[in-house]
Protein backbone atom coordinates (compact mmCIF):
# COMPACT_ATOMS: atom_id res chain seq x y z
CA UNK A 1 0.00 0.00 0.00
CA UNK A 2 1.34 3.40 -0.87
CA UNK A 3 -0.14 6.75 0.15
CA UNK A 4 -3.32 7.62 -1.63
CA UNK A 5 -2.33 11.05 -2.89
CA UNK A 6 1.35 10.36 -3.55
CA UNK A 7 1.14 11.34 -7.19
CA UNK A 8 -0.79 14.55 -6.60
CA UNK A 9 1.39 15.52 -3.67
CA UNK A 10 4.53 14.77 -5.65
CA UNK A 11 3.38 16.81 -8.62
CA UNK A 12 2.63 19.80 -6.38
CA UNK A 13 5.75 19.54 -4.25
CA UNK A 14 8.12 19.25 -7.20
CA UNK A 15 6.71 22.49 -8.54
CA UNK A 16 7.88 24.20 -5.37
CA UNK A 17 4.53 24.26 -3.68
CA UNK A 18 4.30 24.11 0.08
CA UNK A 19 1.31 22.05 1.09
CA UNK A 20 -0.88 23.07 3.98
CA UNK A 21 -4.43 22.70 5.23
CA UNK A 22 -5.66 24.88 2.36
CA UNK A 23 -4.67 22.05 -0.01
CA UNK A 24 -7.43 19.90 1.43
CA UNK A 25 -7.32 16.14 1.35
CA UNK A 26 -3.88 15.97 -0.30
CA UNK A 27 -2.28 17.68 2.70
CA UNK A 28 -4.55 15.89 5.13
CA UNK A 29 -3.48 12.49 3.82
CA UNK A 30 0.18 13.51 3.80
CA UNK A 31 -0.14 14.79 7.35
CA UNK A 32 -1.79 11.56 8.51
CA UNK A 33 0.68 9.26 6.72
CA UNK A 34 3.80 11.33 7.01
CA UNK A 35 6.25 8.45 7.41
CA UNK A 36 4.98 6.66 4.30
CA UNK A 37 5.23 9.77 2.17
CA UNK A 38 8.70 10.54 3.49
CA UNK A 39 9.91 7.01 2.70
CA UNK A 40 8.41 6.99 -0.76
CA UNK A 41 9.87 10.34 -1.74
CA UNK A 42 13.22 9.57 -0.13
CA UNK A 43 13.48 6.54 -2.42
CA UNK A 44 13.65 8.87 -5.40
CA UNK A 45 15.95 11.39 -3.79
CA UNK A 46 13.52 13.97 -2.45
CA UNK A 47 13.56 15.12 1.14
CA UNK A 48 10.08 15.86 2.39
CA UNK A 49 9.97 18.21 5.37
CA UNK A 50 6.79 18.12 7.44
CA UNK A 51 6.77 21.18 9.65
CA UNK A 52 4.76 20.71 12.86
CA UNK A 53 3.30 24.17 12.34
CA UNK A 54 1.09 22.75 9.61
CA UNK A 55 2.85 22.56 6.27
CA UNK A 56 5.13 20.36 4.18
CA UNK A 57 7.59 20.91 1.35
CA UNK A 58 10.52 19.42 -0.53
CA UNK A 59 13.72 20.90 0.71
CA UNK A 60 16.72 21.67 -1.41
CA UNK A 61 19.00 24.54 -2.21
CA UNK A 62 17.35 27.28 -4.23
CA UNK A 63 19.52 28.32 -7.15
CA UNK A 64 19.47 30.86 -9.93
CA UNK A 65 16.10 32.31 -10.76
CA UNK A 66 14.42 30.39 -7.92
CA UNK A 67 16.71 32.05 -5.38
CA UNK A 68 16.00 35.44 -6.92
CA UNK A 69 12.26 34.87 -6.74
CA UNK A 70 12.52 33.74 -3.16
CA UNK A 71 14.53 36.87 -2.35
CA UNK A 72 11.74 38.98 -3.77
CA UNK A 73 9.14 36.99 -1.84
CA UNK A 74 11.13 37.44 1.37
CA UNK A 75 11.50 41.17 0.73
CA UNK A 76 7.74 41.62 0.37
CA UNK A 77 7.07 39.61 3.52
CA UNK A 78 9.67 41.62 5.46
CA UNK A 79 8.35 44.97 4.23
CA UNK A 80 4.82 43.99 5.23
CA UNK A 81 6.04 42.77 8.64
CA UNK A 82 7.98 45.98 9.18
CA UNK A 83 5.02 48.17 8.33
CA UNK A 84 2.69 46.16 10.56
CA UNK A 85 5.22 46.54 13.40
CA UNK A 86 5.04 50.30 12.99
CA UNK A 87 1.32 49.97 13.55
CA UNK A 88 1.80 47.84 16.64
CA UNK A 89 0.66 44.64 14.96
CA UNK A 90 2.68 41.46 15.39
CA UNK A 91 3.10 38.68 12.87
CA UNK A 92 0.69 36.27 14.55
CA UNK A 93 -2.14 38.74 14.60
CA UNK A 94 -1.32 40.40 11.30
CA UNK A 95 -0.61 37.31 9.23
CA UNK A 96 -2.68 34.56 10.74
CA UNK A 97 -5.86 36.08 12.10
CA UNK A 98 -7.70 35.16 8.90
CA UNK A 99 -8.28 38.72 7.77
CA UNK A 100 -6.87 39.55 4.32
CA UNK A 101 -4.16 42.23 4.37
CA UNK A 102 -4.35 45.13 1.97
CA UNK A 103 -0.85 45.31 0.61
CA UNK A 104 -0.77 48.58 -1.36
CA UNK A 105 0.24 50.77 1.56
CA UNK A 106 2.30 48.08 3.24
CA UNK A 107 4.80 47.80 0.39
CA UNK A 108 4.56 51.37 -0.84
CA UNK A 109 7.64 52.97 -2.37
CA UNK A 110 7.18 56.40 -0.80
CA UNK A 111 9.96 55.98 1.75
CA UNK A 112 13.52 56.14 0.40
CA UNK A 113 14.71 52.94 2.07
CA UNK A 114 11.72 50.95 0.93
CA UNK A 115 11.91 52.39 -2.58
CA UNK A 116 15.59 51.54 -2.75
CA UNK A 117 15.02 47.96 -1.64
CA UNK A 118 12.13 47.51 -4.06
CA UNK A 119 14.26 48.92 -6.88
CA UNK A 120 17.20 46.65 -6.03
CA UNK A 121 14.89 43.66 -6.08
CA UNK A 122 13.30 44.72 -9.37
CA UNK A 123 9.98 45.23 -7.64
CA UNK A 124 9.50 48.94 -8.14
CA UNK A 125 7.02 48.29 -10.93
CA UNK A 126 3.60 47.20 -9.68
CA UNK A 127 3.47 44.47 -12.33
CA UNK A 128 6.56 42.85 -10.93
CA UNK A 129 5.11 42.92 -7.45
CA UNK A 130 1.98 41.26 -8.77
CA UNK A 131 4.09 38.59 -10.48
CA UNK A 132 5.94 37.92 -7.26
CA UNK A 133 2.71 37.65 -5.31
CA UNK A 134 1.37 35.22 -7.90
CA UNK A 135 4.55 33.20 -7.56
CA UNK A 136 4.18 33.19 -3.79
CA UNK A 137 0.60 32.02 -4.21
CA UNK A 138 1.79 29.14 -6.42
CA UNK A 139 4.34 28.23 -3.76
CA UNK A 140 1.56 28.14 -1.18
CA UNK A 141 2.85 31.03 0.94
CA UNK A 142 -0.32 33.04 0.51
CA UNK A 143 -3.61 33.42 -1.26
CA UNK A 144 -3.56 36.47 -3.49
CA UNK A 145 -6.90 38.24 -3.87
CA UNK A 146 -6.02 40.17 -7.02
CA UNK A 147 -9.35 41.93 -7.30
CA UNK A 148 -8.83 43.48 -3.86
CA UNK A 149 -5.04 43.73 -3.97
CA UNK A 150 -4.97 41.85 -0.71
CA UNK A 151 -3.28 38.70 0.54
CA UNK A 152 -4.10 36.05 3.11
CA UNK A 153 -0.95 34.45 4.39
CA UNK A 154 -0.80 30.67 4.78
CA UNK A 155 1.15 28.67 7.33
CA UNK A 156 4.16 28.05 4.99
CA UNK A 157 5.04 31.76 5.09
CA UNK A 158 6.48 30.94 8.52
CA UNK A 159 9.49 29.61 6.60
CA UNK A 160 10.22 33.13 5.39
CA UNK A 161 9.79 34.51 8.90
CA UNK A 162 12.17 31.79 10.09
CA UNK A 163 14.66 33.08 7.56
CA UNK A 164 14.68 36.43 9.36
CA UNK A 165 14.97 34.82 12.78
CA UNK A 166 17.75 32.48 11.69
CA UNK A 167 19.75 34.81 9.51
CA UNK A 168 19.38 38.09 11.41
CA UNK A 169 22.44 37.41 13.53
CA UNK A 170 24.51 36.52 10.48
CA UNK A 171 23.62 39.67 8.58
CA UNK A 172 23.81 42.07 11.52
CA UNK A 173 27.01 44.10 11.23
CA UNK A 174 29.58 43.39 13.91
CA UNK A 175 30.41 46.38 16.09
CA UNK A 176 33.77 46.82 14.32
CA UNK A 177 32.03 46.82 10.94
CA UNK A 178 29.59 49.42 12.17
CA UNK A 179 32.43 51.70 13.20
CA UNK A 180 34.11 51.21 9.84
CA UNK A 181 30.89 51.94 7.98
CA UNK A 182 30.33 55.07 10.00
CA UNK A 183 33.89 56.15 9.36
CA UNK A 184 33.45 55.54 5.64
CA UNK A 185 30.44 57.75 5.57
Amino acid at each position, binding site marked *: *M*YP*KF*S*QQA*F*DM*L*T*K*GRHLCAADGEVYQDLHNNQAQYEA*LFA*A*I*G*FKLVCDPRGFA*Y*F*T*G*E*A*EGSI*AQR*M*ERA*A*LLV*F*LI*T*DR*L*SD*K*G*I*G*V*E*EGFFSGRPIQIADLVSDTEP*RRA*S*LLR*DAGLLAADERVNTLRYMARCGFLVYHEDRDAVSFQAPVR*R*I*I*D*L*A*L*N*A*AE*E*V*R*PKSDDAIT*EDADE
Partner: protein
Amino acid sequence: MHNPKASFRLLSRYYPVIAAAAEQERGVSLTRFRELLDAARLQDSRSASSVLDTLAEHNLIERSAESDDEWTVALPIRQAMAYLSGRYGATLPGALQGMLASIKDQTTRLRQHIARDLRPEIELSRQALIREIDKALYASYEHSHGIQSAVFELKMASRQRSLAERHAQIIGLHDQYLEPIKAMVDTGGSMQECIKDLLALIRQATATRESDGLESLKAHAQRFQRESLAHFEAARQALLPLYTKVRKDHAVSVAVSAMLSAASARGLSTWNVGQHLGVVRTRIEAVVTDTALLRYLVGALGSHGDAPQARQRTLVTPRSARLPPVSPPLFADDLVDEIAGKSDALAYLFDTYPEQPDEQLLAVYADLLLERVGNRATFAEHTVARVMRGYRYTYAPMTVHVVDGGSH
Protein backbone atom coordinates in the same frame (compact mmCIF):
# COMPACT_ATOMS: atom_id res chain seq x y z
CA MET B 1 -28.49 34.74 44.55
CA HIS B 2 -29.80 38.22 43.97
CA ASN B 3 -30.27 39.83 40.64
CA PRO B 4 -27.14 41.96 40.15
CA LYS B 5 -29.32 44.76 38.77
CA ALA B 6 -31.22 44.93 42.04
CA SER B 7 -27.97 44.95 43.99
CA PHE B 8 -26.58 47.77 41.88
CA ARG B 9 -29.81 49.74 42.30
CA LEU B 10 -29.47 49.31 46.04
CA LEU B 11 -25.81 50.32 45.96
CA SER B 12 -26.70 53.38 43.96
CA ARG B 13 -29.53 54.34 46.32
CA TYR B 14 -27.46 54.01 49.51
CA TYR B 15 -24.12 54.98 47.98
CA PRO B 16 -23.41 57.95 50.33
CA VAL B 17 -24.00 55.81 53.41
CA ILE B 18 -22.05 52.83 52.12
CA ALA B 19 -19.18 55.09 51.01
CA ALA B 20 -19.09 56.75 54.45
CA ALA B 21 -19.11 53.33 56.14
CA ALA B 22 -16.29 52.17 53.88
CA GLU B 23 -14.17 55.10 55.05
CA GLN B 24 -14.38 53.96 58.71
CA GLU B 25 -11.26 52.43 60.17
CA ARG B 26 -13.30 49.69 61.84
CA GLY B 27 -16.76 48.30 61.31
CA VAL B 28 -19.80 50.44 62.10
CA SER B 29 -22.29 49.68 64.84
CA LEU B 30 -26.05 49.98 64.31
CA THR B 31 -25.99 53.33 66.11
CA ARG B 32 -23.19 54.63 63.92
CA PHE B 33 -24.95 53.37 60.81
CA ARG B 34 -28.14 55.22 61.86
CA GLU B 35 -26.11 58.42 62.21
CA LEU B 36 -24.65 57.95 58.75
CA LEU B 37 -28.10 57.27 57.33
CA ASP B 38 -29.48 60.43 58.93
CA ALA B 39 -26.52 62.48 57.72
CA ALA B 40 -27.09 61.32 54.17
CA ARG B 41 -30.70 62.66 54.28
CA LEU B 42 -31.99 59.99 51.92
CA GLN B 43 -35.64 60.60 52.93
CA ASP B 44 -35.95 56.90 53.61
CA SER B 45 -38.67 55.91 56.07
CA ARG B 46 -37.11 52.48 56.70
CA SER B 47 -35.30 51.84 59.94
CA ALA B 48 -31.49 51.61 60.00
CA SER B 49 -31.78 48.00 61.08
CA SER B 50 -34.03 47.15 58.13
CA VAL B 51 -31.68 48.91 55.67
CA LEU B 52 -28.69 47.01 57.11
CA ASP B 53 -30.54 43.71 56.67
CA THR B 54 -31.36 44.51 53.04
CA LEU B 55 -27.79 45.56 52.26
CA ALA B 56 -26.50 42.39 53.90
CA GLU B 57 -28.93 40.27 51.89
CA HIS B 58 -27.36 41.68 48.73
CA ASN B 59 -23.85 41.08 50.09
CA LEU B 60 -23.07 44.78 50.02
CA ILE B 61 -22.16 44.78 53.70
CA GLU B 62 -21.25 41.98 56.05
CA ARG B 63 -20.77 41.41 59.73
CA SER B 64 -17.37 42.51 60.92
CA ALA B 65 -14.77 39.82 61.48
CA GLU B 66 -14.09 41.42 64.85
CA SER B 67 -17.58 41.79 66.29
CA ASP B 68 -21.05 40.51 65.60
CA ASP B 69 -22.39 43.94 66.54
CA GLU B 70 -20.47 45.74 63.85
CA TRP B 71 -20.77 45.85 60.09
CA THR B 72 -18.25 46.46 57.37
CA VAL B 73 -18.69 47.13 53.68
CA ALA B 74 -17.86 43.97 51.73
CA LEU B 75 -14.34 44.01 50.32
CA PRO B 76 -15.31 43.72 46.63
CA ILE B 77 -17.70 46.64 47.07
CA ARG B 78 -15.01 48.75 48.74
CA GLN B 79 -12.65 47.84 45.92
CA ALA B 80 -15.22 48.70 43.26
CA MET B 81 -15.96 52.01 44.95
CA ALA B 82 -12.31 52.85 45.22
CA TYR B 83 -11.83 52.01 41.57
CA LEU B 84 -14.82 54.10 40.52
CA SER B 85 -13.57 57.06 42.48
CA GLY B 86 -10.32 56.80 40.51
CA ARG B 87 -8.11 56.21 43.50
CA TYR B 88 -6.33 53.17 42.18
CA GLY B 89 -3.46 52.71 39.82
CA ALA B 90 -0.69 50.17 39.88
CA THR B 91 1.31 51.03 42.97
CA LEU B 92 4.96 50.21 42.92
CA PRO B 93 5.71 46.94 44.71
CA GLY B 94 7.93 48.93 47.06
CA ALA B 95 4.80 50.26 48.82
CA LEU B 96 3.64 46.74 49.55
CA GLN B 97 7.11 45.81 50.68
CA GLY B 98 6.97 48.67 53.19
CA MET B 99 3.65 47.41 54.57
CA LEU B 100 5.07 43.93 54.98
CA ALA B 101 7.96 45.41 56.94
CA SER B 102 5.44 47.13 59.16
CA ILE B 103 3.52 43.88 59.73
CA LYS B 104 6.79 42.25 60.64
CA ASP B 105 7.57 44.99 63.19
CA GLN B 106 4.12 44.75 64.72
CA THR B 107 4.46 40.98 64.93
CA THR B 108 7.69 41.41 66.87
CA ARG B 109 5.93 43.79 69.25
CA LEU B 110 2.99 41.44 69.68
CA ARG B 111 5.39 38.64 70.51
CA GLN B 112 6.98 40.75 73.22
CA HIS B 113 3.59 41.78 74.70
CA ILE B 114 2.39 38.18 74.75
CA ALA B 115 5.60 37.10 76.46
CA ARG B 116 5.01 39.70 79.17
CA ASP B 117 1.27 39.07 79.20
CA LEU B 118 0.52 42.79 78.72
CA ARG B 119 -3.15 42.56 77.76
CA PRO B 120 -3.89 46.20 76.78
CA GLU B 121 -0.71 46.26 74.64
CA ILE B 122 -1.67 42.94 73.08
CA GLU B 123 -5.01 44.44 72.06
CA LEU B 124 -3.34 47.53 70.64
CA SER B 125 -0.87 45.43 68.67
CA ARG B 126 -3.68 43.19 67.48
CA GLN B 127 -5.65 46.17 66.17
CA ALA B 128 -2.56 47.71 64.58
CA LEU B 129 -1.77 44.42 62.84
CA ILE B 130 -5.32 44.10 61.52
CA ARG B 131 -5.08 47.62 60.12
CA GLU B 132 -1.70 46.90 58.52
CA ILE B 133 -2.90 43.61 57.07
CA ASP B 134 -6.01 45.27 55.63
CA LYS B 135 -3.87 48.01 54.15
CA ALA B 136 -1.55 45.44 52.61
CA LEU B 137 -4.56 43.53 51.28
CA TYR B 138 -5.83 46.72 49.66
CA ALA B 139 -2.41 47.41 48.23
CA SER B 140 -2.20 43.88 46.89
CA TYR B 141 -5.58 44.23 45.23
CA GLU B 142 -4.70 47.70 44.02
CA HIS B 143 -1.50 46.41 42.52
CA SER B 144 -3.16 43.49 40.78
CA HIS B 145 -5.98 45.64 39.53
CA GLY B 146 -3.52 48.24 38.28
CA ILE B 147 -1.73 45.61 36.20
CA GLN B 148 -5.01 44.29 34.83
CA SER B 149 -6.14 47.80 33.94
CA ALA B 150 -2.84 48.49 32.22
CA VAL B 151 -3.19 45.24 30.23
CA PHE B 152 -6.74 46.16 29.25
CA GLU B 153 -5.65 49.59 28.18
CA LEU B 154 -2.76 48.14 26.17
CA LYS B 155 -5.10 45.77 24.38
CA MET B 156 -7.58 48.48 23.58
CA ALA B 157 -5.01 51.00 22.41
CA SER B 158 -2.73 48.58 20.62
CA ARG B 159 -3.16 50.27 17.26
CA GLN B 160 -1.84 53.57 18.54
CA ARG B 161 1.60 52.36 19.50
CA SER B 162 4.37 50.73 17.51
CA LEU B 163 5.37 47.21 18.39
CA ALA B 164 8.62 48.53 19.90
CA GLU B 165 6.69 50.85 22.22
CA ARG B 166 4.26 48.13 23.23
CA HIS B 167 7.15 45.79 23.88
CA ALA B 168 8.86 48.33 26.14
CA GLN B 169 5.65 48.95 28.09
CA ILE B 170 4.74 45.32 28.55
CA ILE B 171 8.25 44.28 29.50
CA GLY B 172 8.34 47.17 31.98
CA LEU B 173 5.03 46.12 33.47
CA HIS B 174 6.26 42.56 33.80
CA ASP B 175 9.71 43.29 35.16
CA GLN B 176 8.89 46.20 37.47
CA TYR B 177 5.44 45.25 38.72
CA LEU B 178 4.79 41.55 38.37
CA GLU B 179 8.16 39.94 39.03
CA PRO B 180 8.77 41.68 42.41
CA ILE B 181 5.34 40.56 43.62
CA LYS B 182 6.07 37.05 42.46
CA ALA B 183 9.20 37.10 44.61
CA MET B 184 7.02 38.11 47.59
CA VAL B 185 4.18 35.60 47.19
CA ASP B 186 6.30 32.61 46.16
CA THR B 187 7.15 30.08 48.82
CA GLY B 188 9.91 31.59 50.91
CA GLY B 189 9.04 35.08 49.67
CA SER B 190 8.78 37.99 52.11
CA MET B 191 4.97 38.02 52.15
CA GLN B 192 4.65 34.31 52.81
CA GLU B 193 7.33 34.36 55.49
CA CYS B 194 5.83 37.39 57.22
CA ILE B 195 2.35 35.85 57.47
CA LYS B 196 3.72 32.43 58.34
CA ASP B 197 5.59 34.00 61.24
CA LEU B 198 2.48 35.81 62.48
CA LEU B 199 0.30 32.68 62.21
CA ALA B 200 2.86 30.65 64.11
CA LEU B 201 2.86 33.23 66.91
CA ILE B 202 -0.96 33.20 67.09
CA ARG B 203 -1.04 29.40 67.11
CA GLN B 204 1.51 29.29 69.90
CA ALA B 205 -0.25 32.00 71.94
CA THR B 206 -3.77 30.55 71.66
CA ALA B 207 -2.52 27.10 72.64
CA THR B 208 -1.49 28.27 76.08
CA ARG B 209 -3.83 31.16 76.91
CA GLU B 210 -7.11 32.87 76.13
CA SER B 211 -7.65 33.99 72.56
CA ASP B 212 -7.75 37.73 73.42
CA GLY B 213 -9.16 38.39 69.96
CA LEU B 214 -6.19 36.71 68.30
CA GLU B 215 -8.56 34.41 66.38
CA SER B 216 -9.89 37.38 64.42
CA LEU B 217 -6.31 38.47 63.70
CA LYS B 218 -5.65 34.96 62.46
CA ALA B 219 -8.69 35.22 60.16
CA HIS B 220 -7.36 38.48 58.73
CA ALA B 221 -3.87 37.04 58.24
CA GLN B 222 -5.19 33.92 56.51
CA ARG B 223 -7.41 35.98 54.28
CA PHE B 224 -4.47 38.16 53.32
CA GLN B 225 -2.36 35.10 52.58
CA ARG B 226 -5.09 33.59 50.42
CA GLU B 227 -6.24 36.71 48.61
CA SER B 228 -2.85 38.24 47.93
CA LEU B 229 -1.94 35.04 46.11
CA ALA B 230 -5.20 35.20 44.16
CA HIS B 231 -4.51 38.84 43.31
CA PHE B 232 -1.08 37.97 42.01
CA GLU B 233 -2.50 35.07 39.96
CA ALA B 234 -5.13 37.34 38.42
CA ALA B 235 -2.49 39.88 37.43
CA ARG B 236 -0.19 37.18 36.12
CA GLN B 237 -2.91 35.57 34.02
CA ALA B 238 -3.84 38.93 32.55
CA LEU B 239 -0.29 39.91 31.68
CA LEU B 240 1.44 36.69 30.76
CA PRO B 241 -0.25 35.97 27.39
CA LEU B 242 0.44 39.52 26.30
CA TYR B 243 4.01 39.29 27.58
CA THR B 244 4.68 36.03 25.73
CA LYS B 245 3.10 37.30 22.54
CA VAL B 246 4.86 40.65 22.50
CA ARG B 247 8.23 39.02 23.09
CA LYS B 248 7.73 36.76 20.07
CA ASP B 249 6.41 39.58 17.92
CA HIS B 250 9.24 41.84 18.97
CA ALA B 251 11.85 39.18 18.19
CA VAL B 252 10.44 38.86 14.66
CA SER B 253 10.23 42.62 14.25
CA VAL B 254 13.83 43.14 15.34
CA ALA B 255 15.04 40.32 13.09
CA VAL B 256 13.15 41.67 10.10
CA SER B 257 14.49 45.14 10.74
CA ALA B 258 18.03 43.75 10.82
CA MET B 259 17.41 41.91 7.54
CA LEU B 260 16.11 45.05 5.83
CA SER B 261 19.03 47.10 7.14
CA ALA B 262 21.50 44.51 5.89
CA ALA B 263 19.82 44.42 2.49
CA SER B 264 19.91 48.22 2.31
CA ALA B 265 23.60 48.26 3.09
CA ARG B 266 24.86 45.23 1.21
CA GLY B 267 22.12 44.05 -1.12
CA LEU B 268 19.59 41.26 -0.99
CA SER B 269 22.19 38.60 -1.64
CA THR B 270 23.42 39.08 1.93
CA TRP B 271 20.38 37.10 3.07
CA ASN B 272 21.75 33.98 1.42
CA VAL B 273 18.26 32.87 0.54
CA GLY B 274 19.47 29.91 -1.48
CA GLN B 275 20.84 28.29 1.64
CA HIS B 276 18.19 29.28 4.13
CA LEU B 277 15.08 29.00 2.02
CA GLY B 278 15.74 26.13 -0.31
CA VAL B 279 12.78 25.18 -2.44
CA VAL B 280 12.75 22.31 -4.85
CA ARG B 281 11.50 23.45 -8.18
CA THR B 282 12.61 20.82 -10.66
CA ARG B 283 13.07 21.50 -14.33
CA ILE B 284 10.37 20.24 -16.64
CA GLU B 285 12.38 17.30 -17.95
CA ALA B 286 13.39 16.35 -14.42
CA VAL B 287 9.76 16.39 -13.34
CA VAL B 288 8.97 14.06 -16.21
CA THR B 289 11.78 11.77 -15.22
CA ASP B 290 10.98 11.79 -11.55
CA THR B 291 7.28 11.42 -12.12
CA ALA B 292 7.96 8.38 -14.23
CA LEU B 293 10.16 7.00 -11.54
CA LEU B 294 7.57 7.68 -8.88
CA ARG B 295 5.05 5.80 -10.95
CA TYR B 296 7.48 2.98 -11.37
CA LEU B 297 8.10 2.86 -7.65
CA VAL B 298 4.41 2.98 -6.95
CA GLY B 299 3.97 0.00 -9.23
CA ALA B 300 6.87 -1.82 -7.65
CA LEU B 301 5.66 -1.14 -4.11
CA GLY B 302 2.24 -2.56 -4.70
CA SER B 303 -1.18 -1.68 -5.88
CA HIS B 304 -3.21 1.35 -5.02
CA GLY B 305 -5.54 1.13 -2.07
CA ASP B 306 -8.57 2.11 -4.08
CA ALA B 307 -7.82 -0.06 -7.06
CA PRO B 308 -6.17 -3.23 -5.91
CA GLN B 309 -6.36 -4.89 -9.30
CA ALA B 310 -4.38 -2.21 -11.11
CA ARG B 311 -0.69 -2.83 -11.44
CA GLN B 312 0.60 -0.25 -13.77
CA ARG B 313 3.88 1.21 -14.85
CA THR B 314 3.95 4.29 -17.01
CA LEU B 315 7.14 5.27 -18.76
CA VAL B 316 7.12 8.80 -20.00
CA THR B 317 9.13 9.46 -23.07
CA PRO B 318 11.30 10.82 -24.54
CA ARG B 319 12.96 11.31 -21.14
CA SER B 320 12.21 8.14 -19.39
CA ALA B 321 12.86 6.86 -15.95
CA ARG B 322 16.10 7.15 -14.03
CA LEU B 323 15.68 3.72 -12.54
CA PRO B 324 17.55 2.26 -9.63
CA PRO B 325 20.91 0.75 -10.53
CA VAL B 326 20.79 -2.99 -11.01
CA SER B 327 23.83 -5.24 -11.09
CA PRO B 328 25.02 -7.03 -14.28
CA PRO B 329 24.75 -9.38 -16.15
CA LEU B 330 22.97 -7.23 -18.74
CA PHE B 331 24.62 -4.01 -20.01
CA ALA B 332 23.10 -1.39 -22.25
CA ASP B 333 26.38 -0.95 -24.12
CA ASP B 334 26.26 -4.55 -25.28
CA LEU B 335 22.69 -4.25 -26.48
CA VAL B 336 22.73 -1.07 -28.58
CA ASP B 337 23.55 -2.83 -31.84
CA GLU B 338 21.15 -5.62 -31.11
CA ILE B 339 18.25 -3.29 -30.44
CA ALA B 340 18.96 -0.93 -33.33
CA GLY B 341 16.18 -1.02 -35.87
CA LYS B 342 13.63 -2.69 -33.62
CA SER B 343 10.31 -0.81 -33.61
CA ASP B 344 9.73 -1.18 -29.87
CA ALA B 345 12.90 -1.52 -27.82
CA LEU B 346 11.15 -2.20 -24.53
CA ALA B 347 8.94 -4.95 -25.91
CA TYR B 348 12.01 -6.45 -27.60
CA LEU B 349 13.88 -6.56 -24.29
CA PHE B 350 11.04 -8.26 -22.48
CA ASP B 351 10.46 -10.74 -25.31
CA THR B 352 14.14 -11.56 -25.77
CA TYR B 353 15.28 -11.80 -22.15
CA PRO B 354 12.52 -13.58 -20.28
CA GLU B 355 14.94 -14.81 -17.63
CA GLN B 356 15.95 -11.28 -16.60
CA PRO B 357 14.10 -9.56 -13.75
CA ASP B 358 11.86 -6.60 -14.58
CA GLU B 359 14.09 -4.15 -12.78
CA GLN B 360 17.10 -5.27 -14.79
CA LEU B 361 15.33 -4.76 -18.09
CA LEU B 362 13.91 -1.39 -17.03
CA ALA B 363 17.35 -0.24 -15.91
CA VAL B 364 18.90 -1.23 -19.26
CA TYR B 365 16.07 0.53 -21.06
CA ALA B 366 16.56 3.70 -19.01
CA ASP B 367 20.30 3.55 -19.59
CA LEU B 368 19.79 3.25 -23.32
CA LEU B 369 17.41 6.18 -23.32
CA LEU B 370 19.44 8.55 -21.26
CA GLU B 371 23.05 7.68 -21.97
CA ARG B 372 23.59 5.53 -25.04
CA VAL B 373 21.46 6.35 -28.01
CA GLY B 374 21.17 10.13 -27.84
CA ASN B 375 19.58 11.64 -30.94
CA ARG B 376 19.48 8.31 -32.72
CA ALA B 377 16.29 7.36 -30.96
CA THR B 378 12.84 8.30 -32.12
CA PHE B 379 9.55 7.73 -30.37
CA ALA B 380 6.17 6.80 -31.70
CA GLU B 381 3.64 9.63 -31.65
CA HIS B 382 1.10 7.61 -29.71
CA THR B 383 1.61 5.72 -26.53
CA VAL B 384 0.80 2.06 -26.33
CA ALA B 385 -0.36 0.05 -23.35
CA ARG B 386 1.17 -3.43 -23.14
CA VAL B 387 0.89 -5.97 -20.40
CA MET B 388 4.22 -7.59 -19.71
CA ARG B 389 4.71 -10.02 -16.83
CA GLY B 390 1.56 -8.89 -15.10
CA TYR B 391 2.20 -5.16 -15.34
CA ARG B 392 0.55 -2.78 -17.73
CA TYR B 393 3.18 -0.50 -19.28
CA THR B 394 2.09 2.73 -20.90
CA TYR B 395 4.76 4.26 -23.07
CA ALA B 396 5.71 5.61 -26.44
CA PRO B 397 7.70 2.87 -28.23
CA MET B 398 11.30 3.76 -28.93
CA THR B 399 13.26 2.89 -32.03
CA VAL B 400 17.04 3.15 -32.15
CA HIS B 401 18.20 3.92 -35.67
CA VAL B 402 20.98 2.07 -37.41
CA VAL B 403 23.87 4.15 -38.68
CA ASP B 404 26.45 3.22 -41.29
CA GLY B 405 29.20 1.08 -39.93
CA GLY B 406 27.24 0.06 -36.87
CA SER B 407 25.48 1.93 -34.12
CA HIS B 408 28.58 3.45 -32.48
